[in-house]
């Protein structure tokens, strides 16, 4: 699916998501399933926190030497008989993939799950070129037949309920018996397996992403539970790997460190079911495997991120833990974020890739509770990076006028303590009197945006600063009274 960017309409998207009952039902399961499994997996491994440090350090080292590891990786792919293509932007990556498919005479292409393909809008482009892309990850298949975009980076169809899936399967698999029972997830899975098995065997080209690229050996790695990406890169004559620059790691030992934190952070498994390491095309004497192996390495703005604070974002290994633990993601789901990458990682990455002009809403869609950073396997300081975007947004005068004026108004008082303290005390005193009866306000002047979704609790009568001073005074008095005993 080529994704239309709706990030600038985040607020409208979020309102619609909050009112979408089936979506809310589906989202209610996000926290329940992922959070408990991750914490149980982490608790079972005493070295988990040390492994997070190790994962962070490996990524930092690689990014600081990225040009050299890219060189080495390219040499090794070529030595293994594969091809490496560099793409500056999305359009170039699409063209390279389409050209390889055409040269392979491809009519159908199977796809393992790849977020890079979503980022470059590959499917629409292939279809326009007369090549049929078939998503094989069950979740990706579900959203492909619905014409939707993924709403989660590892569970793309997390926004759907089984009743919706049944409806879609009856519509799309019209050649199957209409009276068949599809009421349970097991029968839905069995049907998808049957339908996709034929597609796996018929495809001319297989396209996968890469969780990691290993410089030491020129290897691309994918991690799946279904085995779909692994079939995608084993069966067709041509295998194309789509990967962004920052997937590089130096050695097999380094990738083993990262794999120890990836599945635990993502699904709470010690290890995903299939971890497949592919190096070049089939060798002399091999009886299966692809005959051609291509890697497309996409920049699309990432090299620029290496220069500043956002380099830290390039450590991301796409586990999804940050969105699983995010109260905003849990409330509105992934589509509201309006582009490919949702949740906290999307709130940092999206403005970097599509521009702060279009992405400014996303780093503002955070309570800064810090849970994303607390669970990130490579310790990306996501709240800090979101704050950087807010600063950039403000510097560039992208912040809406009422907010800017409001902040300026507040800043006028905040810089003048002699004015701020009595003014706020007066306001709090007034509000506490006004709201005494109910204990809350359903509406407040100038705060309509806030009270639209929740009540404002009645202040308890005085400001924090005033209470703090009162307490300090009381303590000081207490100490002078007890002074002789100390």
């Amino acid at each position, binding site marked *: 699916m080529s994704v239309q960017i709706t990030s600038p309409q985040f607020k409208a998207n979020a309102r619609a998501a909050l009112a979408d009952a089936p979506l809310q039902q589906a989202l209610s399961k996000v926290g329940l399933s992922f959070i408990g499994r991750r914490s149980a997996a982490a608790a079972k491994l005493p070295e988990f926190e040390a492994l997070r440090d190790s994962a962070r350090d490996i990524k930092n080292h690689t990014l600081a*030497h990225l040009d*050299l590891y890219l060189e080495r990786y390219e040499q090794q792919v070529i030595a293994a008989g594969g091809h490496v293509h560099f793409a500056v932007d999305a359009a170039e990556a699409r063209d390279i993939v389409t050209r390889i498919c055409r040269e392979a005479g491809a009519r159908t292409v199977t796809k393992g799950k790849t977020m890079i393909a979503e980022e470059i809008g590959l499917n629409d482009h292939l279809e326009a070129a007369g090549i049929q892309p078939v998503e094989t990850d069950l979740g990706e298949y579900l959203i492909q037949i619905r014409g939707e975009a993924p709403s989660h980076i590892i569970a*793309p169809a997390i926004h759907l309920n089984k009743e919706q899936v049944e409806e879609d399967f009856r519509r799309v698999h019209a050649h199957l018996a209409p009276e068949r029972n599809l009421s349970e*997830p097991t029968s839905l899975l069995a049907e998808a397996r049957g339908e996709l098995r034929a597609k796996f065997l018929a495809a001319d080209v297989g396209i996968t992403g890469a969780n990691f690229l290993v410089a030491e050996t020129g290897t691309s790695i994918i991690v799946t*539970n279904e085995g779909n990406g692994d079939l995608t890169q084993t069966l067709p004559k041509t295998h194309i790997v789509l990967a962004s620059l920052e997937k590089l790691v*130096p050695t097999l030992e380094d990738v083993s460190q990262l794999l120890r934190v990836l599945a635990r952070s993502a699904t709470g498994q010690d290890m995903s*079911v*299939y971890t497949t390491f592919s190096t070049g095309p089939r060798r002399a004497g091999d009886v299966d*495997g692809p005959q051609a192996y291509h890697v497309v390495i996409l*920049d699309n703005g990432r090299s620029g991120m290496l220069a500043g604070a956002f380099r830290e974002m390039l450590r991301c290994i796409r586990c999804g833990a940050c969105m699983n633990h995010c109260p905003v993601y849990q409330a509105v789901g992934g589509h509201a974020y309006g582009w490919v990458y949702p949740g906290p990682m999307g709130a940092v990455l999206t403005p970097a890739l599509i521009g702060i002009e279009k992405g400014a809403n996303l780093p503002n869609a955070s309570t800064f509770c810090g849970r994303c950073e607390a669970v990130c396997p490579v310790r990306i300081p996501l709240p800090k990076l979101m704050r950087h975007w807010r600063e950039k947004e403000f510097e560039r005068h992208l912040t809406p006028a009422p907010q800017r004026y409001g902040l300026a108004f507040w800043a006028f008082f905040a810089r003048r303590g002699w004015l701020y303290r009595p003014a706020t005390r007066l306001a709090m005193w007034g509000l506490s009197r006004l709201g005494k009866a109910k204990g809350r306000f359903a509406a407040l002047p100038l705060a309509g945006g806030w009270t639209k979704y929740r009540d404002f609790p009645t202040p308890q009568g005085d400001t924090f600063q005033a209470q703090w001073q009162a307490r300090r005074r009381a303590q000081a008095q207490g100490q002078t009274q007890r002074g002789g005993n100390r």
Partner: protein
Amino acid sequence: MTSSRDIVFASVRRALGATGQEAPRRQEVADRIAGHPRGIIPARADLPPAQKIDLFKDMVRAADATLDHLASVADVPLAIATYLRERNLPPTILRGADPRLAALPWASAPNLDVWIGPSDGRQLAGLSHAFAGIAESGTVVMLSGPDNPSTLNLLPDHHLVVVEAADVAGDYETVWTRIRAAYGPGVLPRTVNWITGPSRSADIEQTLLLGAHGPRSLHVLLVGAAL
């Protein structure tokens, strides 16, 4: 004309403030690749041989695979016949040309039909010989080659894997060391499959179900005692 490759490298180097020619940087990268330092290895993987085998068995089963521990490789054909019979499967299995599998006493299971070659998706059961087992996660390590088609790991409904107890390592890193010893530094077989349990998906309502696209069942035939 500047190629996209040149543009990307120039952009990366500009952002890093590097030319790519700095000797210390190049040395650091060369050392890292040549030395491939190990990072943090979980203590649970560092066990005496017998306990390591026990951990492997526990972890294989925890990943929803099944496991038979056989005294000798000679027991493998009969164990396969029994596995298929108990599940009402036809007594037919497809395997690679691996000499270790060819050398098994197939006559001990006379009713078992054994075919050799890659899978085209029509076989219910496939047999492979693992390069190694990994105790810390219950993973089997499969290397592709003329004798070991990767399709056998992924297409049959039931994947049976022979793992010799002597090949069970505690951790991933030990297996990389062995692969380097077998293939040379910087070289991997075309495909290395780490497999940890049977195929599964939780894409429908977060309900975990086995048998998505790969094998519905993974059965490990662990052979012999720890060394």
